[in-house]
């Protein structure tokens, strides 16, 4: 911060600091609340209004979750989908983006097709039918292949590749490199920050995806964590009819402490990724905005 002596500037700084701290607290408190409830006893939760620091700390909720095979298994499924899915995404996106950044045959047509899917999507049922007809139904690949390339990220990545000075590739061509060599030895190494940013984008999408899981996967053993989490948490919602109230009574949702623990367990792993990738992430946001 630059030091100014005028009181007006100081006042401005302090107002800023106070406001920002307040905003940060507003963002943090819900997390703290979730955290606190997940570690408090159900009885304490029932009997108090608002908990930020539990009186008695307990890991009962976590024990309950880890005793359920389903939760641990579905975390495994999600990790698998995220890791493999992101690798597939990167490979597919980078290779098409690279091709489209070169002078190839029918480039304009291909670009148009990519753009077209960005503006018009097929909708749930046609997509479901495609997945079914390709035999992907009830396979984990149904969550990976249909979304192997995001057209938006593809276009951004292509712009990034275009931003790499032509002279470098030309030099490589003179040295006798073919397209594959140019991609692997020049373009991709120069794009490391971009690739890191895109892998984070893709990973977050995979991690948070639940609807494809519900739609395409029929056996509970294959469900990713978000499907399970949704089921644990949304069951709580009241609806208008008395019959529903009765149904809720008969199928009580898991205790809130368990719900909060589940939320935390399903969020934290992907949250941890952020600090590590953040410097790339910030750069990634600017990608393609200015051509070099």
């Amino acid at each position, binding site marked *: 911060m630059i030091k100014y002596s005028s009181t007006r500037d100081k006042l401005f700084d302090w107002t800023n600091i106070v406001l920002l701290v307040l905003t940060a607290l507003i963002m943090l408190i819900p997390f703290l609340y979730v955290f606190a409830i997940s570690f408090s006893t*159900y*009885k304490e939760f*029932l*009997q108090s209004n608002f908990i930020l620091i539990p009186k008695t700390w307990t890991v009962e909720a976590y024990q309950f979750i880890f005793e359920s*095979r*389903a939760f641990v298994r579905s975390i495994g499924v999600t990790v698998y989908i995220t890791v*493999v899915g992101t*690798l*597939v995404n*990167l*490979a*597919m996106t980078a290779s098409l983006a690279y091709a489209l950044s070169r002078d190839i045959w029918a480039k304009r047509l291909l670009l148009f097709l990519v753009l077209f899917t960005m503006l018009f999507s097929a909708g*749930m*049922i046609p997509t*479901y*039918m495609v997945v*079914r007809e*390709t*035999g*992907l*139904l*009830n*396979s984990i*690949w149904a969550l990976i*292949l249909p979304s192997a390339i995001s057209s938006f990220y593809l276009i951004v990545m292509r712009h990034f590749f275009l931003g790499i000075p032509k002279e470098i590739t030309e030099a490589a061509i003179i040295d006798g490199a073919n397209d594959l060599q140019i991609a*692997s*030895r020049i373009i*991709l*190494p120069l794009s490391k920050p971009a690739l890191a940013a895109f892998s984070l984008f893709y990973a977050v999408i995979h991690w948070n995806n639940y609807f494809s899981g*519900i*739609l395409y996967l*029929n056996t*509970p*053993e294959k469900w990713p964590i978000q*499907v399970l989490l*949704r*089921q*644990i948490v*949304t*069951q*709580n*919602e*009241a*609806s*208008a*009819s*008395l*019959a529903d*109230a*009765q*149904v*809720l*009574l*008969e*199928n*009580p*949702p*898991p*205790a*809130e402490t368990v719900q909060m623990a589940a939320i935390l367990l399903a969020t934290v792993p992907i949250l941890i990724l952020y600090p590590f990738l953040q410097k790339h992430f910030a750069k990634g946001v600017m990608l393609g905005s200015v051509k070099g």
Partner: protein
Amino acid sequence: MKTNLKLLAMLVLITAIVLTAAGCSSNGNSTTNKKDDNNVANSNEGKTAENPPATDSNKKMTITAMKFVYGNIPPSDGKGLEMINEKFNIEYKPTLVVQSDYVQKLSAVVASGNIPDIISMEAPDSNFYKWAKQGAFLPLNDFISQYETFKNVPENVLKTFTVDGNIYALPHYFPLTYTSTPMIRKDWLDNLGLQMPTNYEELKQVAIAFTTNDPDKNGQNDTYGIAMSQNINPSMAMGAYWDPGAWYNKDAQGNLIPGIISDARKDVIAWFADLYKAGAITKDFALMNWANTNKEFYSGKAGIFIATPRGMSSEYMSSLIEANPNVQLEMIPPFVAPDGSQGFSSSSGYYKQVMLSAKLKDDPEKVKRILELLDYGRNFYAADQMTQDNKDFDWINGLYGVGYTIEDGVVKKESEEKGLTPAAYFDAIPWAPNDAANGYSKQYKVPLLSELTAKAEKMHAETKHYLNPGSQVFSETRAAKSTDLDKKLFDDQTKMIVGEKPISDWDQMVYEWKNMGGAKIITEINDAVKAASIQGEWK
């Protein structure tokens, strides 16, 4: 150069993964299919060894199903599933979907033309009638009389599932008279020297006294009257006359109207508004979900909530007893209405339904197997038949000592997540001859809960119930629009309770509701009621 090599290695790795991925995926399809076949083969192997070679009529058949489940999802290879396969000589393949997203998945599956043999739905909604008209389901008319348990479904209930003379669904049992009605903290009444309220004015005084007079005698101002959630639930209807869901009251032309737009309801809303001002109902009820509202009551903050004989939570009740050892609960009996009637409205008498795929029409043998399975699941067992000596009961609950145990006469089932019981895999809901036969109150382990539900059973047995004509007929407009229309009414009425809108806006609200399609619903329901010559009976 070194980094380049590393990168090249990375690229090769990525390509390799992608290639294997593509390879896997194409294999994946066939392997998933093959796997299924293998399963069939595997499970067959065990049996063909002991069974004589299959003839045509006892050939093993694959039966697919789709149903929704709540909390605990049983595994796809559970013991209960094996038991079903063995007993009915089928390869039963249920797809279990979480309830919250079931409708969307079902829509996709039906629209893609890949309808499973057995389909479950929560209610006869607009999708049901649409698909029925499109011929997605198998007409069941001929089968109803062939199976004992199917005959238990009352004629007028079946009418709801009839389209162009064809019955397309079998509903499941739901207590007809055991609705959720208000209960009250008797210990609080006693502490304050108050009597059980017998009309709305008295109930209001009690609710306000609960708020201001420290009914739990702990010296703190930490209690209030009625625990309430969003959508004005509980409705605090102390009889069919006030029930928002009952088609009881009539308009000036003599047509039945839904309770939620009646003048009786208007009075209840004004009554709620008074209580809200006095702080005697949950302050932020408009934002409360059902679990939070339960918490308000079972933590001992609120003194009035609802209860019903079936499906009360022992966990909630235990936590209430722990926090308030002296708690006593009582059901509030129905009030005498201005027209002299006294009694609660009944429910529709069913909940959840099952359909068969129309594709089965050329496969009577398969239909027979499916219906046998469904019929078996609907068998009713009275409380004294719930023992391991009753073979059918024992089987459907996964055999004594495995799927369930009996402690002090109370059946204790294993979690469905383990998949030990056949009942976890299909809708095995017994159709009880009458509500009382279920003996719900005897199935609770918490004594206070047994006591309370027994009182509720007694109250429902001793009072009359209004058979709601509105739940016995179908209205297309209602099926299509009721969700939006109800929401509008709940929103407006909530605003009236919290004082954002004056009660005098009531007529305007009803007028808008009628224009949005409400008038059409009223016409359709009244026409249907007349056509079926249904009287709004008390029973």
